[in-house]
């Protein structure tokens, strides 16, 4: 992740892949209200992805629009973080993942809103408001499950432990980017510590820290996700609703 193009592409890919994963819950959530909530959050992520990918295409200047970037790139060309491509797992894993993602996206979009690039600033100012709702919702579930029954506590603890290694990649320093992700870490830690404490959970130790998503080196999970997401567009190029 280097200049403005790669940075914008990476943010757009984070939002796009998160949207696709969240949408997998549609009709499968534990209750009707949650089904609607997850679909709504997926839609917000997709909205941010469309704006970011459209702008990334313009920055690149090679004539690629949002659809070309979303549907006609292969796995090695995606720049999303590994966290968003991981399988949904159970409901606790999904909520822990959304919590970590939005605790990162909220300060990121907030910082973007004040950056020198006008387009990114506009996208950040818009997406920030939606991100605040995502964080609020996910934090609520982390607390409810963490501070719930013995079983729900165990599930949320396992989820946080399982996902924690993937957090490091989000904050890899990139001084050339419009917003250096490393500068967001303190804000993220403050949010996470407060919520985990209320959820009677402890922050895992940072040890193994897989990375590579920003350079196009992904887990195999991304390839399967893309196969499903891209099949229609590739089978019927230019298909429209």
């Amino acid at each position, binding site marked *: 992740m280097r200049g403005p193009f790669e940075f914008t592409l990476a943010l757009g890919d984070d939002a796009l892949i998160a949207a696709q994963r969240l949408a997998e819950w549609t009709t499968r959530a534990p209750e009707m209200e949650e089904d*609607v909530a997850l679909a709504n*959050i997926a839609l*917000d992520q997709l909205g941010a992805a469309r*704006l970011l990918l459209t702008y990334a295409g313009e920055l690149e200047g090679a004539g690629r629009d949002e659809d070309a970037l979303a549907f006609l790139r292969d796995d090695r060309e995606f720049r999303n973080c590994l966290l968003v491509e991981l399988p949904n797992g159970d409901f606790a894993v999904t909520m822990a993942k959304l919590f970590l993602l939005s605790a990162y996206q909220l300060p990121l979009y907030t910082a973007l809103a004040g950056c020198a690039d006008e387009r990114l*600033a506009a996208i950040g100012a*818009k997406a*920030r408001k939606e991100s605040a709702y995502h964080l609020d919702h996910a934090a609520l579930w982390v607390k409810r499950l963490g501070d719930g029954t013995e079983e729900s506590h165990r599930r949320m603890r396992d989820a946080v432990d399982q996902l924690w290694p993937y957090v490091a990649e989000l904050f890899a320093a990139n001084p050339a980017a419009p917003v250096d992700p490393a500068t967001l870490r303190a804000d993220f830690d403050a949010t996470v510590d407060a919520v985990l404490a209320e959820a009677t959970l402890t922050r895992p130790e940072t040890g193994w820290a897989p990375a590579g998503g920003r350079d196009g080196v992904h887990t195999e999970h991304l390839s399967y996700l893309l196969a499903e997401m891209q099949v229609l567009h590739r089978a019927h190029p230019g298909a429209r609703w």
Partner: protein
Amino acid sequence: MAAVVDPEIRVVTIDELGILRAVDEDPASGRVVVTITPTYTGCPAMDVIRADIRRALAAAGHPDAEIRTVYRPAWSTDWISDTGRAKLAAAGIAPPAPVRPGNAVPLTLSVRCPRCGSPETEQVSRFGSTACKALWRCRSCSEPFDHLKAL
């Protein structure tokens, strides 16, 4: 033009919701330029809204109107007009509270039931039938209702 309604909340117009930002005439070409902004980034109603604007302007003799979509300043529920708020309430949708200044995360305060006016209400789900609404229930009259979330 001002009569174009929101496709998902048909009791209010896009002007009353604050989606319609400006209507100008390009002095050089004489074309009408309409500026709109989405409520939420992923709002699926935007394509229908654009089509409805185009149709309304074509009917008014401007078939070549240009529609621009802007994202800054970001839409806020504070832009919903008083008339819009009254119409929402009359349709059983509780209007949003004012947005707090600064970067504060929106906080859910008590919402009055749009049917019986009782403040004894509870949130059922913070995400509702469209991106901009949450689902609430009145403890006094037992009716469920939509609440337009402050944004």
